[in-house]
């Protein structure tokens, strides 16, 4: 079967940090950078992050590969805003509805930087997160309901099986003579079949979990301790420091615009 839930393991310190702290750090950066829409804060944050990636436990090649979708999305957003964003200042180019101006170019640059500054650290932190550890953290540190957390974790494992199912369904349709129909109709039919299969699989898994006492009224214990100590606080502090530096720099440079205000 295709496995998408293989344990994530590594030797660097970052692998041992509680995933809840990684979630927290990514959240702090994200919120801080969403408060303003200027380019200085985004650039400062992104520069700090690029330096910190050296300790991220993810090789440059792998990072580049995984970051590709984010980079493409950022570039796409940038081009769109440059062409159609609110025009101000000198107009550089005009064609139909597209109008490239100094103002829209600045906004585009700031947006690209912002998407990268929020997306890349989130990506890096989550590449080193083992889903099982995250579930342990959510259950033990944040005390989210175990039923919900473990149910989601178990469901995630099934997603790997769905990939295999999807491939089989595709081949089976060709074998049955039904693969010459319109692509869209075939896709819809196949998606429905996958839904049926996944519900059946899900209910079998639920029975297996219930048979092992899941969802009983007994108070659950956790086999794996989920600790929240100095390394976790340090990671949160780093996140806060980068966010603070970015905001300070923007205020000092006079580019800070709270929530995009004038």
């Amino acid at each position: 079967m295709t496995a998408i839930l293989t344990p994530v393991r590594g030797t660097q310190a970052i692998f041992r940090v509680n995933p809840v702290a990684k979630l927290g750090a990514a959240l702090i950066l994200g919120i801080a950078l969403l408060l303003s829409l200027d380019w200085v804060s985004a650039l400062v944050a992104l520069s700090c992050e690029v330096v910190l990636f050296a300790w991220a436990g993810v090789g440059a090649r792998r990072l580049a590969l995984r970051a590709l979708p984010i980079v493409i999305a950022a570039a796409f957003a940038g081009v769109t805003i440059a062409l159609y964003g609110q025009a101000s200042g000198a107009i550089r180019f005009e064609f139909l509805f597209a109008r490239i101006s100094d103002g829209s170019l600045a906004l585009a640059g700031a947006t690209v930087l912002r998407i990268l500054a929020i997306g890349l650290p989130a990506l890096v932190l989550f590449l080193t997160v083992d889903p099982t550890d995250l579930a342990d953290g959510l259950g033990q540190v944040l005390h989210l309901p175990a039923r919900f957390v473990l149910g989601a974790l178990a469901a995630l494992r099934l997603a790997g099986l769905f990939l295999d199912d999807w491939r089989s369904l595709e081949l089976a349709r060709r074998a049955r003579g039904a693969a010459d129909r319109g692509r869209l109709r075939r896709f819809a039919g196949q998606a429905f079949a996958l839904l049926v299969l996944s519900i059946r699989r899900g209910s079998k898994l639920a029975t297996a979990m219930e048979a092992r006492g899941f969802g009983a009224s007994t108070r659950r214990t956790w086999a794996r301790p989920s600790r929240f100590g100095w390394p976790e606080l340090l990671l949160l502090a780093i996140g806060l420091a980068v966010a603070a530096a970015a905001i300070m720099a923007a205020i000092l440079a006079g580019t800070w615009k709270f929530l995009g205000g004038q």
Partner: protein
Amino acid sequence: MLLLGASGAGKSTLVQALAGVLGGEDEGDQLGELLVDGVRPERARGRVGLVLQDPDSQVILARVGDDVAFGCENLGIARDEIWRRVRESLDAVGLDLPLDHPTARLSGGQKQRLALAGVLAMRPGLLLLDEPTANLDPQGVLEVRDAVARVLDDRDSTFIVIEHRISTWIDLVDRVVVLEPGGGVLADGSPDEVLAREGRSLAESGVWVPRFPPRAPVRQVTPGPTLLRTEQLGVARAGGVSLQSGVSLQVAAGTALAITGPNGSGKSTLGLTLGGLLAPASGRVDAAGLAGGLGTDPLRWKSRELVTRIGSVFQDPEHQFLAGTVREELAVGPRVLRRPEAETADRVDDLAERLRLTGLLAANPFTLSGGEKRRLSVATALITRPPLLLLDEPTFGQDSRTWSELVALFTELLVEGTALVAITHDTQFVAAIADAELSLEPAAVSG
């Protein structure tokens, strides 16, 4: 204790009721009372351990150790005690793996032993196994059986197994109970006693009784022209992992070729490649004998051109179902070919009659029993009369009645001149129908 009974007698339902996972009043009616240790089974969680049939939907977590610990966690057992039990249970089932070994990389037999370990760690007084080996290859069946035998030697827990292949478990049980469809107990006693008295009727209802093996018809083999052949064919899994290379084979009309080999040797992938569904990794498939005016590579045929030439029956019938009723399902092929409705209806009725599906024509394919699903998936391939039929594990998990029906049907088809390629672990099936056997070596492990 071995629990037997014809399909539909309620064996699985009884076992699930014992395990307390049958659901509430809104999901069905319960008459009478069922008590485990003097209380209702829902309150006795942990006293009863249940292992089900499908290995894939019983693995809960990503790492071997965590998966075994899952049940103990739910029972609220202290952390040190949990890990002690995890090691002890893995030992008991003979799974000698690191605790952080990914569960996704286990074989079917290993997954079933993992499920057993997870149940044992809860220290149940009652161990329930519902056809635990039906989805396993012969090697996996032995692994699971031996693990259970070891466990029963060490503990004194009650053990109930449902299984229609009696020979796997008969030496481990000291009581056999036969349920009667519609309710009631047909027989209850020692294995010798019950088999002596009910052996013949059990065999007729589909149970594999060693003394009453299903009969297989004998046929005269008259090979026709070659329909399909391969030259130095190589097959690879999605993602490019090579499984086999240099496979050269020929299939002639009216003959049956069995493809055998251990799990992971690429049998199914080879089948899909022969069927024009997957591209070969190297070499080529030459179906000149089937082409009838088209190119010789079946991969290039259109889907509707394929169904009149090669019929593929997948291992899991559910992957192949497209329609809401059995009748619609059978009509898919003829509709694609734009056959007249009246002719289609006749053909559907005819085939349904032949495969004992007539009473089920209005039913939803997903609600059928395992044997009915298998017969339907074979029928959907036969309806367009392809001269070559590719079958992936056609007899897997089937009771002896369905088994002999399938063998009889395939024999008829062979006599009529259809060619068969069957991927199978079933040595009895190979003996009954195959004229040639291609035994694949395990795939070379490359990284």
